């Protein structure tokens, strides 16, 4: 077997990481499935509007929710990697450092958000089929798709990936405080995306995204700095 990268070992590690955290993943899936519809209704109710905000609104909310969950997830799934008592177990698993990092990235940045989004979209489709108030159109009929260009998606992806890595190993006091702040910002983003779709025209949704990307870029750099020691050395 190769001592740098081996696809079979990568597969084993992927299965290992998924199997070792069933509670975290189940809880997250359950929250997404149970929490999404009531939250949507609640936010619509709070703004005093009726249940007719359309698919663009729902997609914006769903995206914000998935990103929020996905950004919080590494702190519960991989938080212990940076801690001595559990980190030794992880560091001693017979796989290369590159494979371990790649598995983290694949799970946290691609697989889990994709599964979450799929759960959300499936639920959204079901509610549309059932003609639940607020789900009058299907998500693929949303007007917001026309504003999602490649440049914007790349921008989101870069910052998103950076944030994931930054948060994986950050266990310092500063990073914990910072994480709390990030959660607050994410909530504001959540509200901001909602308000912008509801109260102004769709063009401003794009502006909000760019604003968030800029803020996240700064946060990512800071988090990456905090976590550099663990990322580089992984010693205990």
């Amino acid at each position, binding site marked *: 077997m190769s*001592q740098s990268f*081996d696809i079979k070992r990568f597969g084993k590690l992927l299965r290992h990481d998924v*199997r*070792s955290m069933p509670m975290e993943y189940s809880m997250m899936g359950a929250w997404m499935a149970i929490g999404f519809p009531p939250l949507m209704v609640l936010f619509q109710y709070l703004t005093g509007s009726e249940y007719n905000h359309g698919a663009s609104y729902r997609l914006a909310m769903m995206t914000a929710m998935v990103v929020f969950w996905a950004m919080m997830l590494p702190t519960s799934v991989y938080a212990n990697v940076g801690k001595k008592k559990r980190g030794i177990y992880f*560091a*001693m698993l*017979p*796989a290369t450092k590159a494979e371990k990092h790649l598995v983290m990235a694949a799970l946290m940045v691609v697989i889990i958000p994709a599964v979450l989004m799929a759960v959300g979209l499936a639920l959204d489709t079901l509610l549309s089929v059932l003609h639940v108030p607020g789900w009058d159109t299907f998500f693929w009929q949303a007007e917001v798709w026309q504003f999602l260009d490649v440049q914007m998606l790349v921008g989101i992806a870069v910052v998103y990936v950076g944030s994931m890595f930054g948060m994986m190993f950050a266990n310092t006091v500063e990073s914990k405080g910072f994480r709390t702040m990030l959660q607050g910002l994410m909530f504001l983003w959540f509200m901001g995306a909602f308000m912008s779709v509801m109260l102004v025209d769709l063009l401003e949704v794009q502006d909000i995204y760019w604003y968030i990307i800029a803020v996240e870029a700064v946060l990512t750099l800071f988090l990456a700095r905090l976590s550099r020691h663990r990322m580089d050395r992984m010693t*205990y």
Partner: protein
Amino acid sequence: MIEIRNLDFSYKKTPVFEDINLTFPQGAIYGLLGENGVGKTTLLKIICGLQRPVKGTCTVDGLTSHDRLPAMLQRVVFLPDEVTLPDNSTPQKYVDELAPFYPTFSQGTFLHLMQELEVEPARKFREMSFGQQKKSLIAASLSLGTDYVLLDEPTNGLDIPSKAQFRSILSKIADEGKTIIISTHQVKDVENLIDPIVILSHNAVLLDASVQKITERLFFEYGGQERDDALYSELLPGGYMNVVPNTTGAESQLNIEALFNAVLRNKDRIRELFA
């Protein structure tokens, strides 16, 4: 074989090892002894690649430890003193997660060891005492079939019958040609088990010798008077126990605690005797 050559290690500006050399050939149970803070755990971490030497090398079967290549990690298992276990998991699930990475893992050995240590493989970790968790981890670690087993304070938390079972299990594993390195303060728990013995002092290796060599160079006298030429004397019920240089070639029974104290109090003399 584990080889440490001209190794320096420090935590920031606090030196732990300076130019140490050690070799651990296969097929023995090494006892790694030393006072608190001399670097016993650090040495184990260096061997399994969790710490990077400042200078020098540490290799396992020719593979540099701190590279932590899969081939090296498949040869070494390290059981730290304290481990956080997933509460909802069980020993069986724990080994199921590890097993695919170790071609030498044996489910039969795991179940046999769990039975010998009297722990149920399907019981959740959160329902176990610290000692039972420790026994589960010992069984899991040994069933991986690695050539090198590094144990840090393995008898902490074990009750008296479990300590005897632990000794018996390790003896069998060593007979299979495995190398076991035990770092411990509980020397009584591993007496008659460890051979050779390595004693660390601040920054250096004070003693690295087999039990046979130790008893060839030192004589352990029980029940006599306190001797002026003793490297260490201790009053026990029935008289003094003296550790003296073995000038006659007479055989004696090693007492590890007495050896440890004798070595710490006569560092230069011990170096001369074992040079």
